[in-house]
């Protein structure tokens, strides 16, 4: 019975194990074992004996067949999605095997270059789903704030200013952040040229620390990492991957064309200015988000920025952008003139009208496989990452459930039609089954 290369008439991957399962149940008293399958298409997991049998049946040995999930991309989206999936499913699906594939790991991902401030765009354009994901992320991170390991995560509270040249409506996130209020006239004296603004306390999540923290957690749980560029979804499936989670950010188009996904190039100067304790983000309602100067103090360096160039794929630093950032930020905060410049970096925000977070079935019939997309987070990936990770995990849950039902259905269908010997050599039964036999 059981080896993989035994002659079976049907070549389905699921044939052997489920067929064995049915045979064993016929040989045993199914009532005491309360397994439920094959007639109910479901194995009651509550029963220990049932799950033993179930596990034992899935392979021709005591080892269950792996359910291989591959996450492509190791930025904040890929790694957090992988961790969320592992958290949610490793106990429920013991055969889950999670793998992360990427050609760039920290500190070379887009996430690493970002300052790491939790702050959504000014308006959610009615996309309440994204507002909810932002909220879930903030609250998830708040839960870690009072633990000493917040430091290892690169997580800390920070207060600061959003500045405008005219009054604007309150943002969708005003009740998510802490202590949101309008600026007083005296505070506005600090920022000539700006007549309106907000003050609030938010979070910083520095990916130079967060990504290694996520990586360590994943590695501790036995998640495997593969440093290579994945050229196609088919490549993954042909290697036996069951589900692909597509967290490829700006380069998602290389796996599947997506005209809605465009680079929004940013450039930042990182300086030593430890006297700056607040973030300062200016807004120019005509130029658009992040095209106006901003200053964000990190745990070691302060990030100066204000570049947002749609359609620009260039990852090289531009001297003109440097000059623009430096002059505008020094005008905003004159004390920066004394700051030492330490680093310069450019990156491509994976901009999209909305985040692509959805399932897609690739292929047909028995070769049908699933991809779950989770990309296109623009300049708010860190802000929204955990909400999206949870939504992706929910989609994966649906996929796993369907796969389970599918395998019952197809196996049952197969069992009813296939011919197999009515009695199998006893010695080939798994130990647990033998123990329960007469």
């Amino acid at each position, binding site marked *: 019975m059981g080896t993989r290369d035994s002659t079976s008439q049907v070549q389905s991957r699921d044939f052997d194990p489920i067929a064995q399962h049915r045979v064993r149940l016929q040989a045993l008293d199914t009532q005491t074992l309360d397994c439920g399958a094959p007639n109910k298409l479901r194995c009651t997991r509550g029963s220990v004996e049932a799950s033993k049998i179930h596990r034992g049946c899935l392979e021709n040995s005591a080892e269950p067949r792996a359910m291989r999930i591959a996450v492509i991309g190791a930025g904040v989206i890929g790694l957090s999605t992988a961790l969320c999936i592992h958290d949610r499913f490793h106990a429920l699906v013991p055969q889950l095997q999670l793998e992360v594939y990427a050609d760039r790991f920290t500190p070379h991902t887009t996430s690493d270059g970002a300052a790491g401030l939790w702050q959504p765009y000014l308006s959610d354009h009615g996309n309440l789903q994204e507002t909810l994901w932002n909220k879930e992320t903030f609250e998830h991170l*708040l839960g870690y*704030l*009072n*633990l*000493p390991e*917040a*430091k*290892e995560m*690169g997580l*800390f*509270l*920070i*207060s600061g200013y959003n500045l405008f040249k005219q009054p604007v409506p309150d943002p969708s996130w005003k009740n998510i952040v*802490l*202590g949101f*209020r309008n*600026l*007083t006239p*005296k*505070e506005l*004296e*600090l920022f000539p040229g700006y007549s309106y603004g907000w*003050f609030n*306390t938010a979070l*910083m999540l520095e990916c130079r620390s967060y990504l290694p923290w996520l990586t360590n957690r994943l590695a501790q749980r036995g998640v495997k990492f593969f440093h290579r560029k994945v050229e196609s979804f088919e490549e993954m499936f042909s290697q036996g991957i069951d589900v692909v989670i597509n967290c490829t950010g700006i380069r998602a188009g290389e796996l599947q064309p997506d005209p809605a996904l465009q680079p929004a190039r940013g450039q930042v100067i990182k300086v030593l*200015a*430890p*006297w*700056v*304790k*607040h973030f300062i983000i200016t807004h120019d309602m005509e130029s658009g988000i992040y095209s106006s100067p901003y200053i964000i*103090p990190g*745990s*070691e360096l302060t990030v100066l920025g204000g570049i947002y160039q749609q359609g620009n794929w260039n990852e090289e630093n531009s001297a003109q952008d440097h000059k623009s950032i430096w002059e505008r930020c020094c005008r905003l905060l*004159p*004390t920066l*003139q*004394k*700051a030492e410049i330490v680093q310069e970096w450019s990156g491509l925000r994976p901009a999209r009208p909305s985040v692509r977070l959805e399932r897609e079935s690739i292929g047909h019939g028995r070769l049908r496989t699933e991809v779950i997309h989770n990309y296109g987070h623009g300049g708010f990936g860190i802000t929204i990452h955990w909400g999206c990770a949870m939504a992706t995990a929910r989609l994966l849950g649906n996929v796993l459930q369907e796969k389970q039902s599918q395998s019952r259905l197809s196996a049952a269908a197969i069992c009813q039609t296939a011919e197999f010997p009515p009695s199998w050599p006893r010695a080939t039964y798994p130990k647990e089954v033998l123990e329960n036999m007469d």
Partner: protein
Amino acid sequence: MRSYEVLPVRTLCLSPPVPTPQMAAPRVAVVGAGLIGLSTALRIAEVNPSCCSITLLSEQFSPNTTSDVAAGMLIPHTYPGTPIHVQKQWFKETFTYLFAISNSDEASEAGIHLVSGWQIFKNPSEAEVPFWSDIVLGFRPMSAAELQKFPQHSHGQAFTTLKCDCPPYLLWLEKRLKANGVQIHTRKVTDLWELHREYDIVVNCVGIGARQLVGDQQLFPIRGQVLKVHAPWVKNFIRDGDGLTYIYPGIDSVTLGGTREKESWCLSPDPGTTKDIFDRCCSLEPSLQRAQDIRVKVGLRPSRSCVRLQREVLSQGGAKLLVVHNYGHGSGGFSVHRGTAEEAAHLVGECIAVLQGSSSKAKL
């Protein structure tokens, strides 16, 4: 020696005295090079630009003054012996002065920066609105969501204020003094009278040293031990309303405090206290457990029911020495230093007028 005190009369508009041709420019000595001495000397130089020579004398300079131990937060202490409106005026002048510096390109050199945070209370009765709430920025009660970070506290106040990092601020003041022609000498003064030949006016800014120097029994130390740690991810201040536990992020270090030990003159760090301070601060900000490079410092707050801001005349056998006292700021030195320096400079102006009056009388 006879001495008598002259009560200060603060006029609204005192123009700087013009030196009369007969009289040599009065010689002013400021004793003490902590925050009060340096800021007072600077204010005297600014208010009386050409009419006197100013020399600063001190045994200790930054980084070895009491001021260097303090975090330098602009959160006022209340002096029981001074009317509230006067304290408020001092704080307002100080805040306005430093606010302008923090907004200029000298801010980083001067060590002045804005910092936001929370003052938290276990008892609602302690959470009254203080007299200075409309001078700091954005003062308001903390929201329920903000208070969740502090499960043992039920109320709190959020605001933005200024911090003066020392040594940078003191060194910046010294630089400004030199630019204003003030001479600076290291010298231990054991008796104010010893200065009567070289100087006409002495400004006494010796802080806790006044107990010995002028025998002021109303002055007493309140010992404070603090830790200065490397924890650059801490961007907000946290202060327990009881004034004993606080976390103040500075430019290069975070000050963790503290203690308030009345009448203790001990300048040596106590290891048990160090652990206690660390534990108390970690309970408010658990990430501090990852703080590095812990240094322990001790300072003696020069405490008094009110700041001694008054003139005095010392005389012996016909010789006179005019004295202006400016000491006894306790926990509140940084919060009011510019205001008390302003008042001391006025008193010096009065002394100069007295000297000029005497000299014209002498001519008759």
